[in-house]
């Protein structure tokens, strides 16, 4: 009896710790039951984000968080993280006159990282979605992308409809994941099972092994993955979605305006086009 009581007390304690940690995960009282949850950060972190730019300048460095397994936007080469997002981040750091530090973590941990203040911004080929907007602010869009389907070379899946009843692999937390999981049941197709991996490469590896029938992932990473395994897999032409990539910052952070300025300057000077063509050779 005593042991049961103490176990129960421990659980209650743990739970109340969890519930109290609102500044990390954020719980908004005004989210309606129909929509998906969790809203903005508490006023505590908003105050901190109030002059994020000044804080960064004082620190002398800016922290970017990303998932460096997403060629050509961010990937590892010779122990360094390179790619389109890495270059844009470098420009942002230069504009602020600080050093850039890139942290490489799981993709679905990027938003919580920014939300919790562990990083100043997230540049991870991240698409703007309503759910994400509840937790972070997005800059202007700097790239248009779409979700594509990769299948085995002799697969009988030729179009979107063929995905019905198939096993699809995705990277956990990406819009590919959201599309295939289709919680709001908006799609006209229904996959049999969604297998979620930590990185796109693992999903493709299972595609080649035959454990999944198709992989849904962003356009340009898809190209790179197919390039490396051109004899075994192929990318279908049909795009599943149209999305916009943007950089995520903490809610209310004035870093957003500064990044928008940088993006604008890169666009006008033609540097953005240079960066893109450096990594996307088409």
């Amino acid at each position, binding site marked *: 009896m005593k042991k049961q009581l103490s176990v129960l007390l421990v659980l209650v304690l743990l739970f109340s710790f969890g519930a109290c940690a609102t500044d990390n995960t954020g719980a908004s*009282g005004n989210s309606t039951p129909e929509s998906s*949850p*969790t809203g903005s950060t508490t006023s505590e972190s908003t105050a901190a984000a109030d002059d994020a730019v000044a804080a960064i300048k004082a620190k002398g460095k800016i922290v970017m968080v990303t998932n460096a397994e997403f060629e050509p936007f961010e990937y590892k080469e010779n122990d360094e993280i390179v790619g389109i997002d890495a270059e844009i981040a470098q420009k942002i750091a230069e504009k602020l006159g600080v050093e850039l530090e890139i942290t490489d973590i799981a993709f679905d941990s990027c938003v919580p990282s920014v939300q919790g203040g562990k990083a100043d911004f997230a540049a991870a080929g991240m698409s703007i979605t309503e759910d994400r907007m509840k937790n972070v602010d997005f800059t202007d869009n700097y790239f248009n992308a779409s979700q594509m389907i990769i299948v085995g070379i002799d697969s009988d899946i030729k179009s979107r409809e063929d995905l019905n009843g198939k096993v699809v692999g995705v990277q*956990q937390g990406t819009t590919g994941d959201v599309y295939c999981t289709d919680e709001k049941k908006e799609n006209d197709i229904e996959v049999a099972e969604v*297998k979620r991996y930590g990185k796109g490469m*693992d999903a493709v590896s299972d595609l080649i*092994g035959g454990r999944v029938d198709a992989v849904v992932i962003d356009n340009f990473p898809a190209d790179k993955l197919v390039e490396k395994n051109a004899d075994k897999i192929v990318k279908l032409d049909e795009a599943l979605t149209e999305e916009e990539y943007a950089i995520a910052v903490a809610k209310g952070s004035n870093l957003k305006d500064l990044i928008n300025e940088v993006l604008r300057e890169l666009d006008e000077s033609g540097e953005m086009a240079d960066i893109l063509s450096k990594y996307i050779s088409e």
Partner: protein
Amino acid sequence: MQQFFEELGTRLYDDFIYQERYMYIVKGLGNTVLITVFALLIGVILGVLIAVVRAVHAGDKSKLKLLNGICGLYLTVIRGTPMIVQLMIMYFAILKSADSLVVAVIAFGINSGAYVAEVIRSGIQSVDRGQTEAGRSLGLTQRQTMVRIVMPQAFRNVAPAIFNEFISLLKETSVAGYVGIQDLTKGGDIIRSITYDAFPPLLVVGAIYLVIVIGLTRILAVLERRFAKSDLR
């Protein structure tokens, strides 16, 4: 205070009830139990085979030298490397095309076998030598003695330890999510990915493991008492 509970209520609703998200945890639990049970089965079978080889060799160094060497190698490697590394090797390198659950059962089974083998070997060796001698002197062959006299007694000695291995294995399977297998832990993680809310799903997952382990420990205590009783003749 009122608002706190309201918020908590909304979060709990969103994390579990909305769109039946609790199903990720339910399905994950099913997979975890499946993997654990079958892996334990394989582990025990493997463990018994290896333990017998090792015990026989220990009894008479001239017998089963090669087999014993192979077993020794297997034990050293499996016990010397992390489970997650073994799982990754099995999943990405060795069984590239097999169904994920099958790969998990095999990987965890092989890993479990190494630990169970040692437990069973000590159980076999703890059976009084007198039993073996009596069996042989009654005219039973080595094999008959082993199977009919030694093993049943050894098993009674090690049953609690194997149960412990079952409990260990249940918690070990939580790394299966790393290779995309949807077990209980991964189920909670998926909800976290969707809702950006970490505590409720993960706490619930932790609580489920806890409840199962406490339940199993209770059964273990009952088992141990039962076995001890038969010792008092």
